[in-house]
Structures are given as C-alpha cells and as structure tokens.
C-alpha cells in the first residue's frame, strides 16, 4: 500500500469533513439533530450504509457500465438503506419512533452517492472501505456535535435552536467558526515556517544566498 495515499484516505473524513467542509448530506443532518442520541444513531446508520456501498461499488467497478453507473449506485444504496430500515424496525422499536421517519432519507443522501462516484469506483476495495469508514465517522462526529449543541441550547431556554430555522442558523455559525479556526491554524503554520527559514536557510536551495 502506498503510504501517502493511505494517510490521505485515512484523514479524509477529518480534513475534508462532510458536514463542515464539503457541506453534503444536510437534509437529515438538520431535520433530526435536535438531540444527541438521535443524531448519533442517524450518523451511525449513515456510516454503515456508506461503508457497505463503497465496498460493493469498488468490487463491482468493472462489472458496471459507465453509462448506467449512477442508477446502479442508487439501487445499491437503496438496498442497504432498506436493510438498515428493516433492522431498526425489528430490533430497535424505541429508536424507530424517533428517527424511523428519516432513515429512508439516507438513500437520497448526496454524500453517499458522491463518495461512490468520486472515490470508490476509482480505487481498490481496501481504500474504498477506509474512505467509507473515515468519511462515515467524520459525518457522525459532525452530526453528533450539531445535535449536542442544539440540545444544550434548547435546554438553556433558547428553544428556537431546536426548530429547522435554528438548525440552519447554528450550522452556518459553526461553519463560520470552523473556517475561522482553520485560517488561524493556517496562518500560524505559515508564520512558523517563515521564521524557521529566517533562522536557518533552506538547505535544498543551494548556498548562494549567503
């Protein structure tokens, strides 16, 4: 396995987080992240479907003709979503009461189709599974954070944040915060390299500058 590619895939879900950077798959994110348990359950279900779809698409990449690939992926995703739906109905009736109505919506999550089309169909099975796990966990973390924040704000008396409007607003604010922190880290790193370069000259550039 190529080490650089491996690392890139492993960190993909955190560097390009589906919720905060790619801004994909938002419909269930906002609709059902009013408390932390529902958010986590939905995230876990989505991660499961994402991993399974990535693996299957990667295995079938030679068998699926290019022209009808989107339809094939959609059927694969719908199949796994049905699996999750039936499982939750049968074994977790309490969860079915709360998130049961949005479980079918995993099938139309653009994140899953996007990963299948942009990553899994071009890579080997191992990488595809790793990417699915990384992206899935990234999505789970994002949606759970949002759910926790909304529940906290709701308990603090700001019940507006538990509605759809508050969810959109809060996600926008969180995205802005994320961008701000990222830019801070980026400038700090840039400054550090600049100072380092001033202290000792870059050995790869040749000693002409002295």
């Amino acid at each position, binding site marked *: 396995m190529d080490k650089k590619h491996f690392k890139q895939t492993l960190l993909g879900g955190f560097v390009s987080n589906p919720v905060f950077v790619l*801004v*994909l*798959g*938002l*419909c*269930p*994110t*906002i*609709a059902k992240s009013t408390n932390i348990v529902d958010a986590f359950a939905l995230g876990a279900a989505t991660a499961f479907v994402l991993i399974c779809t990535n693996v299957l698409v990667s295995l079938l990449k030679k068998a699926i003709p290019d022209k009808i690939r*989107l*339809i094939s992926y*959609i*059927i694969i*995703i*719908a*199949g796994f*979503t*049905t699996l999750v*739906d*039936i499982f939750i109905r049968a074994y977790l009736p309490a969860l079915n009461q709360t998130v049961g*109505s949005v479980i*079918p*919506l995993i*099938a*139309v*999550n*653009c994140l899953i*189709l996007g990963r299948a089309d942009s990553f899994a169909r071009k890579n080997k099975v191992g990488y595809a599974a790793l990417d699915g796990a990384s992206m899935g966990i990234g999505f789970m973390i994002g949606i759970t954070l949002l759910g926790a924040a909304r529940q906290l704000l709701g308990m603090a008396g700001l019940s*507006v944040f538990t*509605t*759809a*409007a*508050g*969810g*959109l*607003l*809060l*996600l*926008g*604010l969180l*995205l*802005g*915060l994320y*961008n*701000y922190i990222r*830019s801070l880290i980026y400038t700090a790193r840039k400054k550090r390299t600049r100072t380092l370069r001033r202290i000792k000259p870059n050995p790869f550039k040749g000693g002409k500058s002295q």
Partner: protein
Amino acid sequence: MELFVTIIGVLMASVFSGNIVFGQSMAVCQLLGSSKKMNTAVGVGTAVLIVNVLATVICFALYRLLVYLNLEYLRIITFLLITVALVSGLNILMRKVSKRLHRSLGVYLPLITTNCAIFQVMNITVNSVLGQSYTFWQGFGFAAVYGVCMGLGFLAALVLMAGVRTKNETALIPKPFRGFPIALITAGLIAMVFAGLRFSGF
C-alpha cells in the same frame, strides 16, 4: 365548495407554514447548490415541480400495487427508481422535443436525481393519503394536488433564496463566513420568517 377550501388549505400549508425546505428542512443541499443565480434557481425549481407532480401520482398508484402484493418493504427502492426513471425519461423527451426547452430546463434534470424533497414528498403522500379511506380516484387527485403544492413551495423557496444570495454577493461579509456559512445563515433567517407565519396561524 368544500373541496375547493381543502385544496386552498393544502396549498397554503405546503407553500408557507409546512414549506418543504424551510419548514421541514429537506433538500438543503439542493437549496445551497443551485441558488447562486436566479436563472438556475428558476430552472431547478420548475424541474422539481414537474418531476414532483408526476412522481407523487405514479408512486401513489405503484404503492397501492405494492400493498396489494404485500411488498411494502420495497418502497425505498421503488421511490428511487421512479425518480430516476422520470428524470432520465424527461431528459430524453425534452432533448427530442425542443432544443430551447432542453437548454432552459433539461440541463438541470440530472441534478435533481437525489433530491430529498421529491423523496420526502412521496413518503408523506403515501403515509397521509393511504391512511384515509379514499377511493382510488380521490386519492389520485389528492396526490396530484399535494405534488403541485409541494413543488410550488420548493420553487418559492429557491427563488427567495436566489434573490437574497445575489444581494449577498456584493455585500461586505467577514472572510470566514463567505460562501456556505452565510448562505446557511440566510436560509436560517428566511426559515424563521416561515416559522413566524406558522405561529400567526397560517
């Protein structure tokens, strides 16, 4: 007369208070993706409206068949296949019928294959219409009305959003908030207005 009142009620409920985007927060990715320009917004909205109407009607009829055959667990696959078939069929039809129509509407059709709004409308239609004891044609009519109203709601949301976002482009926004964050905050503020309509009794 009673029927007329019901239809107006459904229209008001689905365009204003229970708007598919701002009331139920579905299809947010589509809202963010295609509301940068007014032309795109109108194109995507109209395409969703057309697909929505056809999809609800077809899914209503097909779901009755599924219930009859005791195959209700196949509904997710069925709904998705209906959408995909409609999208690709309409795309081919538009390209054959007129180039202009295809340019103004057809190019947006592939974008809406994985639109949560269409899927959710089908879901709601199936749940609400089949729960009551309508005859086949009554249910058919209600499904069609529901599809039209929800599609109109989506179109209205997209056009509103596009109008605000074109203003946003020239505004002076702090750097971390440019792009998606400000769009989400805008959507949140518009959604608050819609929620206010609900509390005032619309």
